[in-house]
């Protein structure tokens, strides 16, 4: 059995397992043995936040209650040795994703012990499948979603189960099939439209802006458009400029649509289900590098609120607002910050449009300092809008100007070093917090 091993150098599991300090030996047999031993720990252990790290709590409840690796398909993941290139990509990305990848949440069952563990793309698939079982009007359309199973395996197995018409393999015509989804939504279906990469949806901008966002209004409320437009975006691993785009900023002005970004398996499934059930058109932003995140999610059905933000880590000194992949950079920086004595409050805003001003506002009123960390471009990004919204609404509560860390205004370069400098890194976050908290 192989396990995906989420690991980082900084956390020392000596306290729990009385073993020598472990370096990332993902591919070694010894590493695999370690994985087997602390698999129970890694799953639930991933759910701890840094300041509440409690080794005893980590070990006791979860290991005995986890489903045996043999029986549960979901625990077995592409890992060391199975598919070299895939695991290499995955492993490489894990370097940037801290072990505290999955946040503590009151709602997760990580502490209660029930639930099942899976990867983010499987969580999306689960959510989608549950909704398709529940309502026969839900259908999927996109390139390679059917027989191929989706280029990121989100729709794997669905075509076999639901048929070729319900999980429609479209030709390569984003504008037309997005429009087709919109027309189908107007006449009674609930399509989930997949863009193979978010960047391809630029070709569908006409339909998304003019029809998806507008038709409910221009028809005087006669036609609803309950579509979900989803796909992976964000800066990946040296994918080049066109495949590394962040379309949140381009779509955010379109009136009539909602935008959400998922970041953990828990909220991925919850947001997928909520988006499908919503009568509004929703754009669900996924991230290429987050598809292999593992987390334990509840067995019982749940949905996440589309308009609410998620409190990742409560704190007192500074509010850090983030979403999608940058959440993990922030959490990694948070470790360093905690060691340095700061107490950051980290909020995953999740709802990119509209902003959850209540959660954000309460946080600002508590900490009086705001740092926004996003992967969007500097100019006209989500951070820019958020800065404006915070300044407008909570100006009196701020002790320092709102600082926004975004990606550089460059087309994402191919070279690894350059790409790293395009995106916000944990070290920059630490510096920014120190600067703000002076």
């Amino acid at each position, binding site marked *: 059995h192989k396990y995906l091993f989420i690991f980082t150098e900084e956390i020392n599991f000596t306290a729990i397992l009385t073993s020598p300090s472990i370096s990332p030996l993902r591919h070694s047999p010894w590493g695999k043995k370690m994985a087997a031993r602390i698999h129970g720990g890694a799953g639930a252990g991933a759910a701890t936040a840094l300041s509440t790290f409690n080794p005893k709590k980590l070990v006791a409840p979860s290991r005995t209650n986890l489903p045996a690796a043999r029986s549960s398909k979901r625990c077995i993941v592409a890992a060391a040795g199975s598919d070299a290139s895939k695991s290499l990509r995955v492993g490489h990305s894990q370097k940037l994703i801290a072990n505290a990848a999955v946040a503590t949440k009151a709602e997760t069952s990580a502490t209660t012990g029930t639930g099942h563990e899976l990867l983010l793309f499987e969580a999306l698939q689960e959510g989608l499948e549950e909704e398709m079982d529940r309502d026969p009007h839900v259908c999927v359309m996109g390139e390679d979603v059917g027989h191929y199973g989706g280029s990121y395996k989100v729709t794997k197995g669905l075509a076999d189960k639901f048929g070729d018409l*319900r999980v429609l393999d479209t030709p390569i*015509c984003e504008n037309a099939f*997005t429009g087709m989804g919109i027309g189908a939504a107007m006449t009674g279906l609930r399509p989930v439209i997949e863009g193979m990469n978010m960047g391809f949806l630029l070709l569908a901008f006409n339909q998304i802006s003019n029809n998806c966002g507008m038709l409910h209004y221009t028809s005087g*409320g*006669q036609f609803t458009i309950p579509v979900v437009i989803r796909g992976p975006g964000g800066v990946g691993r040296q994918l080049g400029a066109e495949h590394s785009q962040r379309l949140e900023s381009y779509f955010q002005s379109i009136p009539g649509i909602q935008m959400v970004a998922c970041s953990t398996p828990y909220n991925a499934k919850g947001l997928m289900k909520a988006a499908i059930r919503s009568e509004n058109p929703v754009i669900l932003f996924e991230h290429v590098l987050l598809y292999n995140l593992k987390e334990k999610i509840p067995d019982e059905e749940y949905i996440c609120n589309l308009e609410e933000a998620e409190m990742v880590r409560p704190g007192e000194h500074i509010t850090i607002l983030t979403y999608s992949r940058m959440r993990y950079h922030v959490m990694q920086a948070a470790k360093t910050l905690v060691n340095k004595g700061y107490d950051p409050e980290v909020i995953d805003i999740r709802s990119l449009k509209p902003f959850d001003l209540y959660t954000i506002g309460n946080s600002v009123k508590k900490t009086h300092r705001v740092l926004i960390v996003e992967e969007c471009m500097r100019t006209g990004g989500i951070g820019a809008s958020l800065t404006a919204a915070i300044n407008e609404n909570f100006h009196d509560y701020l002790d320092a100007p709102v600082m926004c860390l975004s990606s550089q205004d460059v087309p994402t370069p191919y070279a690894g070093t350059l790409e790293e400098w395009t995106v916000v890194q944990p070290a920059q976050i630490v510096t920014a917090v120190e600067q703000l908290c002076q």
Partner: protein
Amino acid sequence: MATSFSATLPLHGSQENRLLLPPIRLAPPPPSFLGSTRSLTVPSSRRLYHAHAARRSPVVGVQEVVKEKKVTNSLLITKEEGLVLYEDMILGRSFEDMCAQMYYRGKMFGFVHLYNGQEAVSTGFIKLLTQSDSVVSTYRDHVHALSKGVSARAVMSELFGKVTGCCRGQGGSMHMFSKEHNMLGGFAFIGEGIPVATGAAFTSKYKREVLKQDCDDVTVAFFGDGTCNNGQFYECLNMAALYKLPIIFVVENNLWAIGMSHLRSTSDPEIWKKGPAFGMPGVHVDGMDVLKVREVAKEAVTRARRGEGPTLVECETYRFRGHSLADPDELRDAAEKAKYAARDPITALKKYLVENKLASEGELKTIEKKIDELVEEAVEFADASPQPGRSQLLENVFADPKGFGIGPDGRYRCEDPKFTEGTAQV
């Protein structure tokens, strides 16, 4: 999943339903379009291509369907049908003329595109549809909405921007929607509606095959010659033929896209030929003759209802007015306009009805009078209707108004009465 070409039948191939169609002629010399400023010169290579293409694909285009209006044995329509067609065309014409008047009196603003001269296409197709069939149009959509059953009052109020309009005044001339009559718009950008129409046809197929409902609704998408150079058109032709969707693509080829002549902008101006390239029949019909259009439409609609897939119909038609009320219409040749004015579809139908003793002049005059009153009444109604209030500004942006988000006070914005009244600061 992909349909094989051998399975697609040519238009005349169906045994069960023989219509008044002549056998398909292969590779005749393409005629120059009436009224074109330049006569169409056909290079010899094109003629070769004609024959070659016809040999390769079993699906061919049909160039001249229903050569003669008068069939010696029987008439094409009954009296009732004739009167329905006549009334519909008169309604279209009177309504559009009234729109022009109202526009110049300052009752409506913006872009208004009138349909004078093209009534045969709208009437010919839409009067064959049921209420559950869908129609998708462009910005030249007033008459499509009227033919589909939207009341003249609702359309006129919408043009005046009043609350009683079919879209509550929020759409305007270019966005005529009606859920009740399945009028799916009204789109301002050309080509934008074609994917939506494809989606409506997809729903029809989905209902039949996945939901196992008894559904044979068809969708008719109307658009112009300019749209036929747009990518969305071709993408949708491909998908519609691929999935065998119950849709009819109707090209209202009036030869002009504002000031751009169709011949100047299109490498191969014969649009009907583009159907067979995608595996569907392409038909060219005289769009100034409502009976010819109706015959072609019958076949295309029947094909779609039977599940045989889409059809591309090119209607050669003409608009008597400019592109919009703001267009001075200086580019078009007066001789061309005169030629088409002589082929006015309403006059032609009137002549047919009277000559074939289907209706008397008196009956037709009664219809005209009735329509005049109807349109006048529509104007009065629109005039008397109220303008939208401020509270309507933010309604209908979202179907679920929770989409406006959670405000700083923790409540959803839509729960704040000031927000819905439009007085809160957003």
